[in-house]
């Protein structure tokens, strides 16, 4: 019905956090990398944003396809009938939250794997004359 609105809310928050807070902080610090892994928090949050926005856009299309979302107010067909509002909210609280949590867990695992892989990789020693070895 409107389950995708929950990940959309998360995507809005994480996008604002990435653009307003993290990127500013990293610019101030001069593009400082996190934990010597070479991957900044801005980039990590970018992955989460892409996952969330990708899911939200394509799920919105599915909801339009099934007639659950319309281009005129109140936009959600469930809102037109008071009897449908409670099931819609229930779906958002169950499926919507589960979607947001699952995507965030998968993202956290990806970040963790990248972190471990980059830490395990041998450090490249740069020779100022001959280059990296």
């Amino acid at each position: 019905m409107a389950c995708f609105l929950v990940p959309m809310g998360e995507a809005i928050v994480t996008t604002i956090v990435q653009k307003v807070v993290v990127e500013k902080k990293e610019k101030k610090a001069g593009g400082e990398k996190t934990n010597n892994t070479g991957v900044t928090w801005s980039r990590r949050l970018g992955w989460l944003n892409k996952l969330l926005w990708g899911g939200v856009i394509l799920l919105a299309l599915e909801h339009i396809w099934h007639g659950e979302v319309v281009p005129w107010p109140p936009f959600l067909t469930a809102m037109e009938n008071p009897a449908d509002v409670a099931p819609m909210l229930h779906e958002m609280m169950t499926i919507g939250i589960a979607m947001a949590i699952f995507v965030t867990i998968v993202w956290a695992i990806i970040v963790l794997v990248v972190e471990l892989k980059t830490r395990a990789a041998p450090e490249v020693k740069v020779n100022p004359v001959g280059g990296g070895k």
Partner: protein
Amino acid sequence: MWLIMTALAAVITTAIWYVKAPEDKYKLGLLSWLFWGATLMWLVDHVMAYLTEGGEFLEINLDATLLGLSVIMVALLAWVIVLLISDPKGVIKKVPKS
């Protein structure tokens, strides 16, 4: 059906991205993230619907297939728009203003 088609698109784009990685001039990484995001969300949707309502896990019919194709089309469209706006080859900048 759209879950399978989106998952397939995610796997294919990730494989193509990996072949070219770490270079990502044409933003295939973005396309992969878009497909994976939708795949994960639909997986949760399908699993929860199956557990609570029962019935078939996957809807396999013409309508579901057309939806799957539309989903792939919209994701590709979003990717092409981002690609043309960022213009990594500088093609649009080189268009003569005659």
